């Protein structure tokens, strides 16, 4: 049986304290670090969120989806750039994270695509994003919203 760490409250507290989401370590199997997103202009455009998801357990974990009150259709997407330099993005499907491995959701690669926003993403706010795993486990992370021009979690 895998255990999941609920980082939401802690991250929210630290975010309110003016800190970015910290590296969370512990005996739990799935750890989400360095979550961040960009502010949106209004609600018509999709948003994107980024983070590192680490499997600290002994068994593979499979990320199957996302939920958030912020967006009606959150989904893991992958951006690819082909040999001609043309970028495209599409749903990434299920993502298996091997024991001891991590996956990076980062600009130009995997991202949490936040389609059909329910409210604008405002710089300085945070929103909860829940990662859904194939065994029914969930991890909720509080994602800080940075500026539109942010380049990474530290910006």
């Amino acid at each position: 049986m895998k255990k999941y760490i609920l980082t939401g409250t802690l991250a929210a507290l630290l975010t309110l304290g003016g800190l970015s989401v910290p590296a969370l370590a512990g005996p739990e199997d799935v750890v989400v670090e360095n979550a961040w997103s960009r502010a949106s202009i209004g609600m018509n455009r999709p948003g994107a969120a980024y983070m590192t998801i680490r499997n600290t357990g002994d068994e593979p974990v499979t990320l199957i989806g996302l939920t958030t009150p912020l967006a009606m259709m959150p989904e893991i997407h992958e951006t690819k750039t082909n040999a001609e330099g043309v970028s495209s993005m599409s749903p990434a499907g299920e993502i298996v994270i091997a024991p001891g491995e991590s996956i990076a959701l980062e600009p130009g690669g995997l991202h949490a695509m936040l389609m059909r926003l329910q409210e604008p993403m405002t710089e300085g706010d945070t929103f909860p994003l829940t990662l859904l795993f194939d065994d029914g486990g969930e991890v909720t992370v509080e994602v800080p919203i940075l500026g539109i021009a942010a380049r990474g979690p530290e910006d």
Partner: protein
Amino acid sequence: MRRRAILGYGAAGVGAVALMLFVGWWQVDGPGGPEPVGQRPVALTEMDFRLTDHEGNAVGPETLIGRPTMAFFGFTYCPDVCPTTLSDISGWLDDLGDEADEMNVVFITVDPERDTVETMAEYVGYFHPAIRGWTGPEEQIARVADGFRATYERVPTESGDYTMNHSASVFLFAASGRFVTMIDYHEPREFAVPKIRRALEEETEGAT
């Protein structure tokens, strides 16, 4: 007798190989070949298009002549690649400091249906002040992309909207309008900034 026959076949063989090579060249590189993708843009002086910048000014390739130019394609409904490229460019411009003042920096939309002049104005306002946003009628955007040898394509999404696949490289032109080089998406900053300097230096050489 026998030997002559072999020579005959040999000559026919050489002829056949030569024909195959010629046909191959014609289809791949020659005038019979398809337009190759990913090739170099033409010079700005050879381009012909009319667009509008985010302040409502009429612009075209001639607007860019006289100063080095950094240009790239995108759209403001793009959640990942475009804000990343715009922030990368803003970072490069910060690194260049005063040198960047001598440059045109142009973000050209491939989604004119949603990216009106007002939309472009609001969007570029969040990034480095040197970045200009250009939009225009679809057929003019197509002409720009053609000159840059760039591609774009409208793709429906599951949410009922659409997204745009597009060339994500940043194109660099000298002040003369000559294409210098491009910065590929994901290229580290330590490569990008020297490439921009190269485009800037060409101008200096031309001026002295």
